[in-house]
């Protein structure tokens, strides 16, 4: 799988895990049946903040791991070349550093394909959030608990993000066209 595909998969797993933790916490503390909207709002704000920071940290760790993997992969390739270049005419250390920098730069750079994928998956995320909003309004209109309506609206964001990342993984595996 490509760098973009793996990054999307890791992002989807991170968001799914954080959402699950939030759901367990919300259920255990009775946030779904709470009459205090203020308590629900405070919990959501804290959960949102923690989720954003965690997602950024996971992406940083992923990039470090990817860099290490690329370095090891390149070192193995250079080792194979060194054994066939016994005359020592090539400075492998310089060549290797340059190669790793090129691979990392090429893998992480944004180009038209990544922009096209991002454009298509954003539409799906927006659609899910829209449905969440409508569902929350319907529950509210039918006399349901405001806390539940708020939770549905809140959960539509991570669900939309997960759907978008899964779609990004699909596009990176199966390809994407302009049409």
């Amino acid at each position: 799988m490509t760098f973009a595909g793996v990054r999307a998969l890791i992002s989807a797993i991170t968001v799914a895990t954080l959402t699950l933790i939030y759901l367990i916490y919300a259920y255990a503390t009775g946030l779904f049946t709470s009459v205090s909207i203020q308590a629900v709002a405070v919990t959501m704000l804290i959960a949102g903040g923690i989720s954003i920071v965690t997602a950024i940290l996971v992406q940083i760790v992923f990039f470090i791991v990817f860099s290490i993997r690329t370095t090891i992969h390149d070192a193995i390739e250079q080792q194979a070349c060194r054994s066939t270049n016994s005359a020592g005419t090539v400075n492998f250390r310089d060549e290797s550093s340059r190669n790793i920098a090129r691979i990392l730069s090429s893998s992480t750079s944004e180009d038209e394909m990544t922009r096209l994928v991002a454009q298509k998956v954003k539409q799906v995320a927006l659609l899910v959030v829209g449905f969440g909003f409508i569902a929350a309004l319907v529950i509210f209109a039918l006399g349901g608990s405001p806390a539940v309506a708020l939770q549905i609206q809140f959960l539509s964001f991570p669900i939309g993000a997960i759907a978008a990342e899964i779609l990004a993984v699909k596009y990176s595996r199966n390809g994407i066209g302009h049409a």
Partner: protein
Amino acid sequence: MPKRLAITNNIRRLRFFANEMTQLDLAECVGCSRQTIMALEAGKYTPSLDLAFRIADVFGVSITEVFVHESAKDTQDT
């Protein structure tokens, strides 16, 4: 609705004849990522006209020598 044309490409062959140019080299020349070149060669991505022209320019050939669509292929075969 008109039938979608299957577009194939000769990038792998052209890279071979361009002194075994690597995917990374080509990606750097045209200003895209190596993953995009890989997807192009595997037929998993249809590039924009801009990228298609830049790829053709790198190999010094016309765009129709790099990208071939189904009906053009049929005409060439007959």
